């Protein structure tokens, strides 16, 4: 039986019908047209589908769409404010922290969750926080630098 | 006369084991033609499977390249990449 689900996605109310086996990732991509979240594995091992639910970073492939009922969901599509990129998005481009770009939305969502909870992470903290986001192109070097640099800029902006 | 050396691939299937020959030809296309005449089937095999190194530079499809008597030619397997 299909469930009627209402939730908030990137601040906007949404509703859709969910097959009981449908994941939140399926709902975002197929029902709501938000294809920025990617499916790399479907088993929670790559992080390409990372979203934030009620402030908590999760893999949207490991959550049933029906579970989203009444919850607040943030995806990569909501990261920029209008056409103004989030500092992380800017720093990823600046540091060439993406090559193919497929893991990038998940990495950005995860990195934002990190900086939201820990504005001044060490390199080791960044590496462990992002361990669930596989990137096969970059070797992570420039990704880590971009996150650290974005953190520094955001701290600076807070002081100023 | 340009000197041809086979370095790899399965050319010896056609040449009866020979891996080095002198061939009278002034372009690569003519050289392959001459080889095919000498060893029937080798021409097509080279066309499909072999790259040709001419004086140190590897050409995948060098039909038109002119040859001189001093030219050193290596037949090597075509190279792709990832």
């Amino acid at each position, binding site marked *: 039986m299909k469930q009627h689900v209402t939730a908030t996605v990137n601040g906007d109310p949404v509703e859709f019908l969910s097959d009981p086996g449908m994941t939140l990732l399926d709902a975002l991509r197929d029902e709501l047209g938000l*294809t*920025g979240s*990617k*499916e*790399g594995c*479907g*088993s929670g*091992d*790559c992080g390409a589908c990372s979203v934030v639910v009620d402030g908590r970073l999760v893999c949207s492939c490991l959550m049933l769409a029906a579970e989203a009922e009444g919850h607040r969901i943030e995806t*990569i*599509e909501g990261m920029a404010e209008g056409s103004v*990129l989030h500092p992380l*998005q800017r720093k990823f*481009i600046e*540091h*060439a922290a*993406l*090559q*193919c*770009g*497929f*893991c990038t*939305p998940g990495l*950005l969502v995860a990195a934002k969750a990190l900086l939201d909870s820990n504005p001044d992470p060490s390199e080791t903290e*960044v*590496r*462990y926080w992002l*361990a669930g986001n*596989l*990137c*096969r*192109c*970059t*070797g992570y*070097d420039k990704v*880590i630098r971009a996150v650290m640099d974005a953190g520094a800029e955001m701290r600076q902006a807070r002081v100023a | 006369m340009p000197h041809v*050396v086979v*370095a*790899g*691939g*399965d050319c*010896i299937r056609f040449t009866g084991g020979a891996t080095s020959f002198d061939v009278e030809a002034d372009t690569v296309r003519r050289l392959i033609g001459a080889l095919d005449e000498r060893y029937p089937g080798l021409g097509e095999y080279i066309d*499909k*499977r072999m790259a040709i190194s001419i*004086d*140190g*530079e*590897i*050409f*995948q*499809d*060098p039909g038109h390249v002119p040859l001189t008597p001093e030219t050193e030619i*290596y037949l*090597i*397997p*075509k*190279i*792709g*990449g*990832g």
Partner: protein
Amino acid sequence: MTDVLDRPEAGDTLRVVGTRPARPDGVDKVTGRATYGADFTMAGQLVGKILRSPHAHARIVSIDTRKARALPGVKAIVIGTDFPDQASEELAGGEGASNIRDIALNCLARDKVLYQGHAVAAVAATSSSIADAALALIDVKYEVLPHVTDVEAAMAPDAPLLDETRFTTGLETKPDKPSNIASRMQLKRGDLADGFASADVIVEGRYITPAVHQGYIEPHACVASFGADGQCQVWASSQGQFMIRAYCAKILNIEASDIRVTPAEIGGGFGGKTTVYIEPVALALSKQAGAPVKIVMTRDEVFRATGPTSGAVIEVKLGAKSDGTIVAADVVLKYQAGAFPGSPVGAGAMTALACYNIPNFLITGYDVVNNTPKVAAYRAPGAPISAFGVESAVDELAEKLGMDPIALRLKNAVHDGDKAAYGPTFKNIGYVETLEAIANHPHYKAPLGPNQGRGLAVGFWFNVGGESTAAVNIVEDGSAVVISGNPDIGGSRASMAMMAAEVLGLPVEHVRPIVADTASIGFSMLTGGSRTTFATGMAVTQAAQKVVEDLKRRAAEIWDVAVDKVEWVNGSAVCLDAAKAKPDLTLAAIAGQSAKTGGPIGATIALNAQGAGPGFGVHLCDVEVDPETGHVSVVRYTAAQDVGKAIHPSYVEGQVQGGAVQGIGWALNEEYVFDGKGAMENPGFLDYRMPVASDLPMIDAVLVEVANPRHPFGAKGVGEVPIVPPLAAVGNAVSRAIGVRMHDLPLSPPRVRAAIDAG
């Protein structure tokens, strides 16, 4: 940190090339707007799914699809015999030459399944769950056959044969019995026996590397639409839209111009997306269903049914004088090809000794079929495998001689004018410079801590050129569009725009690079072989140069001066005719009056690029081994590479860093694990174990620039070299840390602990 060792070049006045602008597709990719294979949707599309063999080797007795067809919502079912019959034919299109019949049989098996996961049938249905249900209703009867996955077991005379009609080629005498050894190849020089007889020191070893997957994060995906008029559209993520067009046309017997392939953004390929798996199947389903069909692989399917690279056995024997001069090398390479012939053993053999000047050698390579997925290209295909054996042996030789590993390599290094082990003579190579870059790097002299070891290894890749088409069109406001036919996997749009901007004299932001579909630009070989920035870049550069010539002609016409009195400087025509002092004409000014000077401004160049310079890499790795658990941590890593000229240094560094880390994964944990029935036991990221962020240190990329005179800006291919040295660099570091030579990959904790215990 990254250093660029610039070589002084006369008249180095580049404005754009060598800088680090934002990539043109960056915003799309950081906002989630970029459209990858699975992100595209067509109205009325059906869901396509594939039924795969549960057996590693079996004869297909029958396939009954009647029940599945009867299921409401099922719109099409295809099996192997629905494809037209294929002759065994070599077809250029993907990676070098490929046998089109094998590719078709790999997309859908016919008489036999040759590996667990081999596609047997496909359905298209109105929903994913109906497609799943239909797959379950297809009744396939198999006659299970004995299988073989290990390469040496497959070579044995009594091994189960994948193809009873296959006889080994490349032997002096024609064999009288069929074999899984598809071919043998040899490279030789001098006299091996004499060489070893003159050696003071001999090292000998047998090395094993497992099959590993390219590990791109995006599973294969496509949408295909077969029109009632025979016009086909394919939207797919791959390394080459023209490759997809060529293969689909051949497999389905369609005129290639009737297929329009639009390249989606590609979520990584590394060679693994240089062939087709699902596109011809989706087209066949679409034809039958009369509706577009989308197929998206699961990760499980990607591991079980798409290209790993070969698992291999490498035997190396080296002989050297006591001063370190290597006088003889005997290398035997046994590579798994998977279900069909075509392992990269040829390239493995040709690269094996490419860094060394050795008077006497014999390299023997075997291409061996076995019951695992058909191998696909993986970044410098074949080279990391043979390099692991050779570089481990050279390291052992250095230890035995008491020589510094760089000194030993310098002693035997190839230079310009030396004949490569695979034949040709080297020109404009930067190998010695790259070795010196590491020798002079602070890392090389940094002290090591307890339980730490330092490993060095070198690597070589040919780099290729080949056919590319590019167009540069000037827009009426003076900006420009660059059109090419190469999917952008790692930032090539940026390098195309930069090279065009450099020639046109425009700020790079005013050049918009586009990757076009197969109907909108001429043929281009796929993005692979480290060729795009080199070859397609050459086409872009030449097209831009042609545009500049045209702009100069138009300026001359406007000014009424001779063309040779016009110079193009920083995006403007400058009049050199002293008699007619004219204010400079900007590109925008000329573009604005193009109608009066001959119409639209643009040029297309189609070329077959030659002169791709070979690349060399030298990697230095420090590891720390936990002697009790056998766990290996890479604690410092420096990778130097001769890149010719870095067009966009950040993306060149990215290639070096990414390649190094893929190699580290190969060295430490990645492997295909098969159970007793030939089924892959770890077809997911959880147990396949690619490196994660916390496994690694920063990767210091050192770009050495020894210009390639055959490229307008000196570029050499860079993408593949960096995966060649790491296997041995890590292996040598571990061997030195624990004092035991490691021969088998991966260097997982159980293996390292066992080696320590065995002493």
